[in-house]
């Protein structure tokens, strides 16, 4: 058992261990929405960043009038078969910001599309996609970048697009909430994962290192990044387009007003 340190990190903790994290910033997770509600009511002096629960068939109406305004992160484990279930969460949008965390596994794009169609934000849980998955990932990127029905963010695309747009460095570890300096994942047994992934030597010289930070070289250091570089390049190009659009628009406005 690790005692919570007084850091700026947020602790991702199982609901049953919440009372050990009084005074801390926490992400509270559970498989059960009712357990989250019960713990929120019983444990004081915690700063809840968001609540996280797994998509199951369990009724979530208990969350509609509890913890109003606290963001909810709903985690799909098998998106290809679970995506229709997203309809049952749309009522929660009236009282909570909602994000759907979707693993990048075959068929995940249907869940992304429906989540965005229901006005949910999306976080992709990506590891080292093979060629087939990369094609699906690129189709989702195309959807995110170019469809006017998309009004919500899809992470990690969104933060990277911003990073390119503002010409600022970023870290995929941070964006995916896997940087233990920022998010400390506490297991059901109360153990903390603290190991920081290091940049791989083979990544030096890569044009995207200051954003990827070797994310895609874990766990397999031999992973071929050519496909994922296409994703980065598309985002960089899109950011350049947006910048150009905005400059053109601003110039047009100046002409119109003069």
């Amino acid at each position, binding site marked *: 058992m690790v005692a919570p340190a007084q850091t700026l990190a947020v602790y991702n903790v199982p609901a049953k261990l919440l009372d050990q994290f009084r005074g801390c910033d926490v992400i509270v997770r559970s498989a059960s929405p009712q357990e989250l509600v019960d713990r929120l009511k019983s444990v004081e002096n915690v700063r809840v*960043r*968001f609540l996280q629960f797994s998509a199951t068939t369990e009724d979530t*109406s208990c969350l*509609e*009038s509890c913890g109003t305004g606290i*963001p909810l*992160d709903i985690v799909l484990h098998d998106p290809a078969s679970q*995506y*229709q*279930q997203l*309809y*049952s969460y*749309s*009522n929660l*949008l*009236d*009282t909570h*910001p909602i*994000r759907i965390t979707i693993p990048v596994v075959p068929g995940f794009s*249907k869940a992304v*599309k*429906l989540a*965005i*169609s*229901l006005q949910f*934000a999306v*976080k992709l849980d990506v590891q080292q996609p093979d060629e087939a998955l990369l094609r699906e990932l690129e189709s989702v990127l195309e959807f995110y*970048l170019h*469809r*006017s*029905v*998309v*009004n*919500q*963010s899809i992470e990690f695309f*969104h933060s990277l*697009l*911003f990073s390119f*747009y503002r010409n600022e460095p970023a870290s995929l570890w941070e964006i995916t909430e896997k940087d233990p300096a920022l998010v400390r994942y506490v297991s059901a047994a109360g153990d903390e994962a603290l190991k920081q992934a290091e940049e791989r030597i083979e990544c030096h010289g890569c044009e995207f290192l200051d954003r990827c930070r070797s994310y895609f070289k874990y766990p397999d250091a031999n992973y071929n990044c050519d496909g994922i570089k296409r994703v980065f390049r598309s985002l960089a190009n899109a950011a350049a387009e*947006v910048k150009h*659009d*905005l400059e053109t*628009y601003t110039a*047009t*406005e100046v002409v*119109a007003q003069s």
Partner: protein
Amino acid sequence: MMGNHFSIILLPTNKCNVNCEYCFEDKTDDRMSLAQLDLVITKVFDYMDESGIHGLTIHWQGGEIMLVPPDWFERAFDLIQNAAAKRGKFVENGLQSNMIAYHRRWNGIIERMFGNSVGTSMDFPNVHRKLFNGSAADYTKIWKFNVQTALAAGISIGVIAVPNQATLEAGAEKLFSFFVDEVGVSSFQINTPFPGGEQNGAKKSLGLDVHELGAFFADLTDVWLERGCDRAISVGPIDELVKTFTDGSGRLPCIWQANCADEFISIDARGFVAQCDCWVTSYPEYFFGNIYEAGGLAEMLATSPARRKFVERPGRIIPQDCIDCDYLAMCHGGCPVRTYTFRGSMFEKDPYCEVYLAMFRKAEAAAATLSTSRAFKLPTPRLVQIERRESLPF
């Protein structure tokens, strides 16, 4: 269950004063008493308390709503406002009438209770809307006179129009001219027809060729862009679609909500509760229950097998092919009652799918054109989206 706002379509009378051939309602002579209204409001507020809901919108219609006299509404309004004040609720009211029985004695309550606004219905050309003792032309003449009288009194009028084969033959330009130039309204919307209720010859002719109807909507979009957009003329759902594609701010009609079961219910004069006015007047097998007799609305909605079908509909039909559609976000499989009345099952996508696709494509293109020309004084949709996405709470 339904977020922080609740809506009911309330029918205090099931009786009507006209004889429209395509009406989906099976009429009765039932009328809600003020005591029954009090019971309805109490149970609705109880439900809102249990669900943590503050706001209520009541859409008043019939039957024909103006068969209930204005003084009944004066007392109903006081009853509702007093109850709302005691229970800490906010209530808005909307009125939908055929305007055939309109008289200036309605003006006071229309201003006090309904924000000086009335929704009505008329088709162009009028084929199916008829009086009990008179033709469609007679109906149109009375309607037009009453609408123009109300407009002259400063009442805002919105019109719902249902196209027929003659509408498609006349074309979008003539329809627009009839409502805007001839009648003088600045807001109308087009609803697609469906053969609800007891069948007859007129209802068998309601189905229109989806390609022709899609082309009609595309033409109407062009007419609106040319003649309505800059004059603040609202042509629904076209203008709201364009807003949606521009910056996501459009308010789309109930047929395109993610799930109408999350949006509203309907209660008729007999106390029956169902999904909407289309269901509560004609399909007893889809009633959720009776609010006069039920212990509570929350339990009724939570346990009704009929309501469960509406709740489950999008999740069951989306995998059929809507999940592959570019416009899933706009439509979610469309309207249950249109599907049911044409197909005999609600677990299929809306039969007007092709029409909706044509409308969405046209509106998306129009939004791009308008954004480029800065008609909405906004940069491209993508930039708006990017700015909006910056303040995520996660």
